[in-house]
């Protein structure tokens, strides 16, 4: 109540002193806000987002949190609930220190791909920042989550919250039953392989997390109902099965095991001979969560571009409509420009291409091409140049592309020139690095192709596959790293991961690094403490 009173008094004094043209239309005055203000801001933002831009979003749930809670959220990948593991504690310890020392600020918001879409916003934000954050997250990201094909294909926004709570409870139960140490070690191993626990190509697998949860219960119930202690005492027919196995030739074996398989965690879950049921289930949990985050990695640049372009447009419209004051607009621009700042390669601050900067620039460029194209644009982009429907074009792009494909399709010569992009090839067989292409007529396509490759997640993750299992003999698991451009794996880490893999598999594991011509390296690992 007292807050409101103060706010009211402030408003009054402003009204008397400052000549604001249409004071009644302002959403807020000054940096203070309360829940009523938030509601008003959200309505105004949505009016523009849905009414003018035609965005299509999940319902929004705004949660106001403190900076400490933001730190908590950081260390659980932003999710409201997550299973317990020491590695999250490690992240938390580091973030906490960085934040307390002032080395690192906190995000203004975190947004979660769920239905309803949860936006965490910090209590410290000023009213202007809250407006920006709502436009960015509750409109931009939210629309992207709901409409982009990668998210639609791979994630189940309505099921994730329930699945995480199932996962958390399941893992906690396992800890109770089998001991924290055993579970922790298993999760360590699974985390090490998490980046190779992803299906990169859609098959007939459905990703309905609620069903996953139900199916696990059914599997267990089925197992329990079938359990009959008598069977244990029946003598086994000896030598029968191995005999049939021996007959299988390699082709047949691979076909049955569905090899080669690039989803190592999936393969282990289904095939590892010595794992217990609960261990398989935990592998499955870790793998499904990795899968849920996979689209985010594929669309980071676009997602931020979409959200940044959206907040920029909405804030500008709010200002035009007189709903935010000049001061607020300047505060917004200050924050916006620092977000989309792209230092050049020889700048001390350069640390890669800023996804916000590139994303925002591309969205603006697409808008420009569709509204006021040059002749160059007309010849490069005949499908969208001058179509006059910027919003429609953008929404189509947001729905049907990911980082790699949007760059190879829509990075225009105009933008390449503007950013001064150039392509360097660094072949360690040569003495010097070579400038392979720059922003000129001969180079546009090459620069564009090279940049798109950079954003291809399937290319930037090393391509490692399970290729064979010696089922009849010593059960050795064979993996192959398809080496690209002669770049091999980091050795120390690889050996550590292989140790985890060997413990999971229970027998020896061998990883060969090779391309079509050369074998670069071979790693072998025996299990030390196999899971069983």
């Amino acid at each position, binding site marked *: 109540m007292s807050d409101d009173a103060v706010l009211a008094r402030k408003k009054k004094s402003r009204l008397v002193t400052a000549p604001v043209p249409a004071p009644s239309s302002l959403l807020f005055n000054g940096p203070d806000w309360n829940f009523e203000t938030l509601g008003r801001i959200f309505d105004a933002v949505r009016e523009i987002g849905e009414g003018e831009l035609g965005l299509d979003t999940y319902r929004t749930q705004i949660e106001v949190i403190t900076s400490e809670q933001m730190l908590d959220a950081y260390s659980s990948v932003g999710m409201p609930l997550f299973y317990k593991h020491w590695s999250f504690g490690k992240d938390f310890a*580091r973030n906490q220190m960085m934040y307390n020392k002032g080395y690192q600020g906190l995000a203004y918001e975190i947004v979660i791909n769920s239905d309803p879409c949860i936006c965490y916003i910090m209590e410290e934000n000023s009213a202007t920042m809250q407006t920006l954050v709502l436009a960015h997250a509750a409109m931009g990201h939210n629309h992207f989550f709901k409409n982009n094909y990668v998210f639609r294909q791979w994630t189940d926004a309505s099921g994730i919250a329930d699945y995480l709570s199932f996962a958390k409870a399941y893992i906690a139960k396992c800890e109770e039953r089998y001991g924290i140490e055993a579970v*922790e070690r298993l999760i360590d191993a699974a985390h090490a392989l998490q980046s190779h626990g992803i299906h990169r190509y859609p098959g007939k697998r459905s990703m309905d997390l609620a069903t996953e949860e139900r199916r696990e219960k059914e599997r267990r119930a089925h197992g329990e109902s079938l359990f009959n202690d008598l069977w244990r005492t029946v003598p086994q027919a000896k030598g029968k099965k191995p005999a049939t196995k021996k007959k299988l030739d390699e082709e047949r074996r691979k076909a049955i095991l569905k090899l080669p398989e690039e989803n190592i965690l999936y393969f282990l879950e289904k095939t590892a001979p010595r794992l217990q049921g609960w261990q398989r289930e935990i592998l499955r949990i870790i793998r499904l969560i990795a899968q849920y985050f996979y689209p985010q990695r594929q669309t980071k640049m676009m997602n931020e571009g979409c959200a940044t372009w959206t907040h920029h447009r909405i804030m500008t419209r709010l200002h035009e409509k007189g709903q935010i004051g000049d001061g607020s607009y300047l505060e917004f621009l200050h924050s916006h420009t620092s977000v989309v700042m792209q230092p050049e390669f020889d700048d001390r601050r350069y640390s890669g291409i800023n996804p916000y900067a590139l994303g925002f620039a591309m969205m603006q460029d697409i808008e420009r091409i569709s509204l006021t194209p040059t002749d160059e644009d007309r010849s490069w982009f005949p499908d969208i140049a001058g179509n006059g429907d910027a919003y429609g074009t953008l929404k189509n792009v947001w729905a049907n592309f990911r980082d790699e494909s949007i760059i190879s399709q829509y990075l225009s010569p105009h933008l390449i020139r503007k950013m001064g992009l150039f392509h360097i090839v660094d072949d360690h067989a040569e003495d010097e690095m070579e400038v392979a292409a720059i922003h000129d007529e001969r180079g546009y396509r090459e620069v564009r192709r090279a940049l798109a*490759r950079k954003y291809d997640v399937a290319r930037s993750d090393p391509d490692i596959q399970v290729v064979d299992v010696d089922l009849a003999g010593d059960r050795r698991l064979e993996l192959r790293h398809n080496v690209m451009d002669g770049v091999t794996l980091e050795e120390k880490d690889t050996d550590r991961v292989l140790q985890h893999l060997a413990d999971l598999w229970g027998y020896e594991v061998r990883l060969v690094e090779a391309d079509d011509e050369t074998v670069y390296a071979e790693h072998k690992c025996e299990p030390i403490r196999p899971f069983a």
Partner: protein
Amino acid sequence: MNIIDRRRDPGGKSLANRQRFIRRARALVRRAVREASGKRSIKDIDKGGDIVVPADGVREPVLRRGSQGGKREYVLPGNKKYVRGDGIQRPDEEGGGSGASADGEGEDDFRFALSNEEFLDLFLEDLELPDLAKRQVMGVEETRPVRAGFRSSGPPSSLSVSRTMRNSLSRRTALGRPRPQDIAAMEAEIARLDGLEGQEDKATALRADLERKRTRMRVVPFIDPLDVRYRRYDQVPRPVARAVMFCLMDVSGSMDEHMKDLAKRFYSLLYLFLKRRYKRVDVVFIRHTHEAKEVDEETFFHSRESGGTVVSTALEEMARIVQDRFPANQWNIYAAQASDGDNLPMDNLNTINLLKSVILPLCQYYAYLEVGHSRDDGGGEGSSLWRAYAPVVASDERMAMRKVSHRRDIYPVFRELFAKEGAGGTGAEAEA
């Protein structure tokens, strides 16, 4: 749209994970803590703070490409002078000044901050106070409210609603207070009967009944002052374990700053340690030359005196103070004496007698720390005080002594003295 205020939610969501992390890295963190404590000033020794552990111990390995060799491509913004075909010198080992340095996690140390509590826990882990159990229940100075049933009067804040309502219900049942629903039902019934012909008798009877019930309702109140109960709290005295720590130090001219610094470090550790075990710890500083005086901390450590060295004066002073202010049956008494080992030769006998007959019976633990310079090491068989104390230490487990000549030895010596199954300790498994 929904707005939810999470700010009041219980915090510390990450606490469990953080503890798991520290538990996992415990050995590493403990080593780091001890290293860090050596570098700190005394005042900061109980503060938490940055801890650096080798990243190797808490590594999360993943399959990733190495940063060396092969053919790599970069796309960089901000070209100014390069044209196609230009050669660029490879920057040394920095991964081409480009994306390569960003994607590799360095082999650096992992740095994070510990809270004061966590720091001390690790710092003083596995240390035990000798003889703690012996006099644990000490002076009574605090009381604590304890629930003790109910009473019929009290402040509104301690009103027990459930108990009051239970009383009210049983009284209402016993006295047959009609329920409001029954009355409503009767009224409805009367209204129904009124609508019908030939039911006047029934209606009249019902009306009389209703009237009776209404009266009863008025007479028997819903809540009677008789029903009201309040929670009753008794103030239970709580014993508080408390300790006093005597710091005895020789401040004669032969004690230089280095020696005093060593002594001070030892005292700080002891103080910290006692503070963790006892709710209340008093510290008494007694300095002595040829005469002893109780002083404040500042004077104790920083002012110089001149004169001879008579240790027994300090012990006398301590005995006097114990008698005056710290009755041995109410206080746990610890003493730490620091000296360079000089004593007036004729005082030695007196000192030992005092120790044996007066001081040690009072004390839980008496530690003698002989401070010196590293160059003195191995010089003969020890000082006069050391030689004098040796037989006492051998015969009485409440006393221990150590030599320290360098700052880095303080902590190991301290640990030796207070290790759980260590020298001087009785191995008491008591918890304060």
